[in-house]
């Protein structure tokens, strides 16, 4: 049986609750913890990279270790930090925004998390097993085929496992949005965060299979004598690049679209205005997603595809700037004439607009195929994608976390510390990455363990490293804030920001069944509608009745653990095949258990619900 949020539980039972939970709000917290852990790990790796590059010809770390750090920084930040943190937000918010009691498949939701978690842990075990992957997060063949040790095996199989989890999460959100919307919540009344998460999930559905196939071929090349990418045996290395970027480019939009969604929630709330051009925002999101699949070869302009292919992909890439521009202007005009409150989430959103515009600008410059011959694989590209991913996705994640923190935990992060965090991080970010544009144009290629003295690269590298320390300091302030806030545990109301969407119409944190009665949605920004036209409370769409809830299950954990154990057997083979047998047996057993056992869930009875107050935010 589930526990209610404010019941004091022992450590053991809390742990068991989280290991077995299928509640989207608790899974959100799991994603948050996992994502933050890997974010700190990736940040630590970044700090070591920047310390190595503080001065020319530095011998702080070895070339091999540098390559491992650089590979794991990219892989960790993309797959194990940014995506889970976005999933944390989606899980915490999306069902509440559409008035659902949970996601469509709560069991699969838990399974998705545990697969991500064990995949990420497996990848990082490589540090202690003879060395992490050392071929860049892109793992270009044949370098990834020739790479010695087991690092790349850990990469291929670790990402495969966590990729399954991501794919499941994506499918789950698609079905949730299509099937679980409350009465009145039509598609064109959905909040933008729900829209962008929905579209990002569609992108996951179509993009991740390309990665799955690529990793599958890579695994076979490395472990089972395949020759897909070995040029000596007639394999073709360019196929890996295509497969990787057919996944890799939409991946960028999988990350940035939900961040767009976050800002599209925060800006209207703190401008006290509805989103300007809502329908064109939705249209732009869909268009970006669609075009996102047409442009992967702009990562490959220097591969030698020829001028025809390069020109087509150049023009297609430039086209994406149009819907992105539409979004920027819509945000600006949402604020136009508004009543802007400079709360910390809003400050993040305001910082995002110029930084993301710079990232978009350099994106268009990179799209120019001929000019890309200079930019490609230089620090210019490093600067560009950090402006997009840190200046867009990471700012979006932190803005979202601060904004929805009260909804997730019922507490409010300290505003003063939030502003300190912001300024340290934002100044550090610009110091670190702005000069890197110039480093690249001045002739510094990316993924360089060392740069040489007397090449005019010293000063900007030093500035860049100093900036990194500011970012680290900012992150520490944020962590301190989280710890202090949670220890104090001061509860806030259900709607501390005076917001507009459905999730703010219920208590913080919400009861485990979310909505006592299914809400009735009477327009875009339902809570705002009720505040202006009703009594400020969300109206129910049904009389009070029994609520059907799913049971907790330990199967997702076991199922993922089985794959984790089996993965070692697959990597080491020989006598280690025993591990694979054990692991697959655990996984198959868990699947069998899940299939054979009738689990019909349970009901919360109407009488119990009546005792708990009216469940609204009043």
């Amino acid at each position, binding site marked *: 049986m589930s526990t209610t949020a404010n019941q004091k539980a022992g450590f053991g039972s809390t742990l068991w609750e989280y290991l077995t939970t299928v509640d989207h709000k608790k899974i959100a917290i799991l994603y948050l913890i996992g994502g933050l852990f890997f974010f700190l790990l990736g940040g630590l790796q970044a700090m070591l990279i920047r310390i190595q590059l503080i001065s020319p010809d530095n011998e702080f770390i070895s070339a091999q270790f540098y390559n491992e750090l650089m590979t794991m920084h990219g892989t960790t930040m993309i797959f194990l930090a940014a995506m889970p943190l976005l999933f944390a937000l989606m899980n915490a918010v999306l069902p509440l925004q559409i008035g659902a009691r949970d996601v469509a498949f709560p069991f699969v939701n838990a399974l998705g998390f545990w697969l991500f978690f064990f995949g990420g842990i497996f990848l990082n075990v490589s540090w202690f097993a003879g060395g992490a992957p050392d071929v860049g997060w892109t793992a270009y063949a044949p370098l990834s085929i020739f790479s010695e040790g087991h690092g790349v095996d850990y990469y291929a199989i670790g990402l495969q496992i966590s990729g399954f989890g991501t794919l499941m999460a994506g499918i789950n959100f698609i079905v949730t949005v299509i099937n679980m919307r409350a009465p009145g919540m039509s598609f064109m009344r959905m909040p933008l965060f729900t829209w962008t998460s929905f579209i990002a999930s569609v992108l996951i559905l179509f993009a991740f299979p390309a990665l799955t196939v690529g990793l599958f071929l890579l695994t076979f090349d490395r472990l089972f004598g395949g020759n897909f990418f070995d040029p000596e045996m007639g394999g073709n290395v360019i196929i890996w690049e295509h497969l990787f970027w057919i996944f890799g480019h939409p991946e960028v939009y999988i990350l940035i679209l939900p961040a767009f969604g976050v800002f599209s929630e925060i800006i209207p709330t703190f401008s006290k205005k509805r989103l300007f051009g809502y329908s064109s925002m939705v249209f732009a999101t869909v268009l970006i997603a669609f075009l996102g699949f047409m442009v992967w070869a702009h990562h490959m302009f220097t591969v030698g595809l020829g001028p025809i292919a390069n020109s087509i992909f150049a023009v297609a890439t430039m086209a994406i700037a149009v819907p992105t521009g539409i979004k920027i202007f819509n945000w600006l005009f949402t604020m136009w004439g508004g009543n802007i409150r400079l709360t910390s989430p809003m400050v993040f959103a305001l910082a995002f607009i110029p930084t993301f515009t710079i990232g978009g600008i350099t994106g268009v410059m990179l799209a120019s195929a001929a000019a890309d011959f*200079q930019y490609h694989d230089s620090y210019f590209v490093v600067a560009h994608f950090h402006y997009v991913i840190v200046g867009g996705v990471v700012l979006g994640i932190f803005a979202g976390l601060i904004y929805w923190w009260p909804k997730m935990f019922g507490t409010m992060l300290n505003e003063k510390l939030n502003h300190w965090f912001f300024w340290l991080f934002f*100044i550090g970010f610009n110091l670190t990455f702005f000069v890197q544009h110039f480093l690249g144009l001045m002739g510094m290629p990316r993924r360089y363990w060392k740069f040489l003295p007397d090449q005019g690269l010293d000063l900007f590298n030093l500035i860049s490293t100093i900036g990194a320390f500011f970012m680290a300091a900012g992150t520490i302030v944020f962590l301190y804030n989280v710890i202090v806030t949670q220890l104090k545990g001061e509860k806030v109301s259900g709607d501390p920001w005076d917001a507009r969407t459905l999730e703010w119409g219920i208590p913080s944190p919400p009861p485990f069944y979310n909505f006592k009665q299914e809400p009735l949605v009477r327009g875009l920004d339902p809570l705002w509608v009720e505040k202006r036209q009703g009594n400020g409370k969300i109206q129910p769409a049904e009389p009070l009745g029994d609520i059907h809830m799913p049971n907790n299950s330990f199967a997702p954990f076991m199922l993922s653990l089985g794959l984790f154990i089996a993965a070692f057997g697959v990597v080491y083979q020989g006598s280690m095949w025993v591990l694979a047998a054990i692991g697959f047996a655990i996984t198959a057993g868990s699947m069998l258990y899940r299939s054979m056992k009738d689990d019909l869930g349970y009901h919360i009875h109407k009488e119990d619900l009546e005792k708990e107050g009216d469940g609204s935010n009043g």
Partner: protein
Amino acid sequence: MKGWMSRIKAVFALSVLALILSGCGEPFLSALQPRGEGAAMIMELMILSTVIMLFVFLVVMIIYVFVVFKFRQKKGQEDHIPKQTEGSHALETLWTVIPIILLLILAVPTVQYTFALADMNPEVNEEGEENEQIWIDVTGKQYWWHFEYEGLDITTSQEIYIPTDRRVYLSMISDDVIHSFWVPSVQGKMDVNPTGNQNEMFIQAEEEGLYWGKCAELCGPSHSLMDFKVVAVSPGEFEQWVEDMQGVTGEEVPESDTAQDGQELFSDNCLACHAVGSSPNKVGPNLTSFADRDKLAGVFDFTEENLYEWIDTKGENMKPGNMMVDAPYDLEEEEIYQIIEYLMTLSPSEITPESAENGVYQDSDLSNLFPEEEEEDDEEQEDENDEVEDEEEE
């Protein structure tokens, strides 16, 4: 509000200062100081796109600054409810159409230059005749570069000599993993792929000079140490260099006894991988003009200590992961010095990287390099190249 502004001003002043202090990088390395046709074309495109994009940025920032300052909540207005604007078709059309126009302005020259940079047809001179093409086969290896001059019977490694009066065409392939050939101040980069994916590009230097080349695709631990040089010399100097290089057989006997001993040791221990004189052997770098090189192994100062350390340790810590560590030789200290003495005699030509930097210009039309009777060969060569292009287009 004041604190805000002064903070922004301080950051701005700092970044401007930093920019002025370091300019646009070094002329031998920076893409911002183009010294060749390709880099100059790309620079034009970079400037055009930067101007267009700065315009966009300015528009965004003007609206942004206005909005943030004008519509920030004022004291006593906490409860003010602004008008809930749904949107504006006119405005939305405006910021859809204008970006499309701006992008078209950028797209046209982009396509034009993308094709121009991929043009491998011979240049046409003032009299309307086609120039003879110099083709160089480039091979990327972990972690060095190999160059064979087609039809000229010259092989070099790490340094590529080109005349300043014309384009030099490269046909590029890798022997192991993917590398990328980049000489920022002369030309953009092109990947060097293993078997089956041969790439072509041209390089052309407007001015004599010693230009740094870099590997731009991650290729292993010593990726950052895979530098090479483009030695751009005047046509006359190039012609002399070609003649000098063609004369090397590798069997020249050096003058001093130590060097002769060194040569013997070299043939016993090194020749299996390293050739002197034109040779198809590219297991290790070709050493024909070794003593003239600007840098040792592409990145190290050319000193006896460094050279000794390299031969003694097989470069194990100097270039981590390099293939020479597997070389089976085992040499005494004295023997290494003898080999060094021999290696230092490998200077077949007056034309060295210094000639690229001393400002002496010697003219020539390079016609000596392309004697009449070889023309047929050249044509065949061109046909082959055409075929390769055709295949690529398919």
